[in-house]
């Protein structure tokens, strides 16, 4: 197996794929559906936002590849307790990390750093970012399907 494949499919990613965290619906929560027409992946992100814009609960459901599922699972763990603005800022740093060229130093994003290997696989960037795009739509409580295309 190549080093790049090992970078992509790290144990933590495989673990979150097998046992996704916060994989459930939240009743009466804001939610949005994300869709990747390239591969047919669909995901729904739910979130509740408390006083001061703090994300008090966040979860997801859907089907997808290992990268999209693990990314969604890790996202829910990373943003719970953060404010919506902080989550948005984290998305921007995450997006930069997974789209940077191979030589760019890897930003430390905690657990999310495990997804840095995606940068070696440009066609998989959309898999890793699907949950985040869907989160943004859920924050806006847009009742529409967001697409990666």
């Amino acid at each position, binding site marked *: *197996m*190549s080093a*790049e*494949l090992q970078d*992509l*499919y790290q144990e933590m990613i*495989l673990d979150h794929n*097998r046992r996704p965290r916060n994989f459930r619906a939240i009743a009466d929560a804001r939610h949005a559906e994300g869709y990747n027409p*390239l*591969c*047919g*992946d*669909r995901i729904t992100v739910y979130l509740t936002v408390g006083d001061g814009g703090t994300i008090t609960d966040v979860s997801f459901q859907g*089907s*997808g*590849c*290992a*990268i999209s599922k693990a990314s969604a699972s890790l996202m829910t763990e990373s943003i719970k307790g953060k404010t919506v603005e902080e989550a948005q800022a984290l998305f921007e740093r995450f997006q930069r990390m997974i789209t940077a060229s191979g030589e760019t130093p890897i930003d430390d994003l905690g657990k999310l750093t495990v997804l840095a290997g995606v940068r070696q*696989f440009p*066609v*998989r960037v959309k*898999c890793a970012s699907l949950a985040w795009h869907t989160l943004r739509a859920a924050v806006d409580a847009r009742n529409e399907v967001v697409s990666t295309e």
Partner: protein
Amino acid sequence: MATVVSAPRGGLNVNAIRQDFPILRQQVHGKPLVYLDNAATTQKPQAVIDSLVHYYAQENSNVHRGVHELSGRATDAYDAARETVRRFLNAADSREIVFVRGTTEAINLVAQTYGRAHVGRGDEIVLTEMEHHSNIVPWQILSQEKGAQLRVVPIADAGELRLDEFERLLTDRTRLVCVTHVSNVLGTVNPVADLVRLARSRGIPVLIDGAQAVAHMPVDVEALGCDFYAFSGHKIFGPTGIGVLYGRKALLDAMPVYQGGGGMIGRVTFDRTTYAELPYKFEAGTPHIAGAIGLAAALDYLTAIGLERVAAYEHDLLEYGAQALSQVPGLQLTGTARSKASVLSFALHDVHPHDVGTILDREGVAIRAGHHCCQPLMARLGVPATARASLAMYNTREEIDALVRALQTVREVFA
């Protein structure tokens, strides 16, 4: 130009064929390229590449209007390409061959001309559950405009059309039957001659989507008796952006025009326009001349090898592939029809097809992962996507073995 490749015992000399395809000589991610995405597009033999270079270097000019030498040569080459296509499909008349961008445009052409003229409120168009989006959406657009209905022939679990349902869906409201010759997901070879007979005995015309068929088996439109047959150049070793609509002359003659513009007219005044004869009436604007010439080179190349031989070779390879894949633990083949061509769709236990595709790619093996532009079929199969290996005449048993080895790597990653 075309290399005639033959082997003893009437078989296929695959090694010689592979030499004709320069792209196959490369490595991908440090591994020899194993190209198994032929249902998406096929690679091009040197003869096709040379024909494009020759055209642009020696003959480039516009067709049917110049008085000069080059225009004459370009026109001759373009007309000769049409005759090559006619021979290839065994059509009765080269005026029945319309050059289009590809299968998609061919189907849209029929929908927007024949369809708009003959389909009205309450009428029905019969399709099948295994159609590609390009043989669904044009009919949906037409049906919405006209207040017509789509009727969908279901498939059985192995991926074969339910012929009893097909017959049941043919009614006095059916205006057209649109069916794929070979499924791009299941590999099923539909019994198109039987379907044509059943439909035409009721006076219903039939359009066949031949995109996945023409590179893998001989096609004879006269023997099939179909009214329309569509295919794309790039799936038969030719260039992208060129394709063919075959239509029976009586139907084409009666059909309204498609796009308006130069080349498709007889005489134009601001009051009215008369249209050109077949097939030019459907070819507005400067056509893809180089594409047509490249396609003809591809058909000549394939004809020299012999489609009967190609079909026999690929049948053997497909059997070998199905057998080899079925030995991979956790692998499930999708599409196990008795009559199949080229396609091996599969699911690997819990591993998403997209992950399969990425790992295979790093092993040099190119497959497709996704819905293959068949979302209604995916819904019928109950999966969001499949992984698909699709064969062409230049693939080998060794490449199937490489696919199986790469699938072991997938299993290791996801162990």
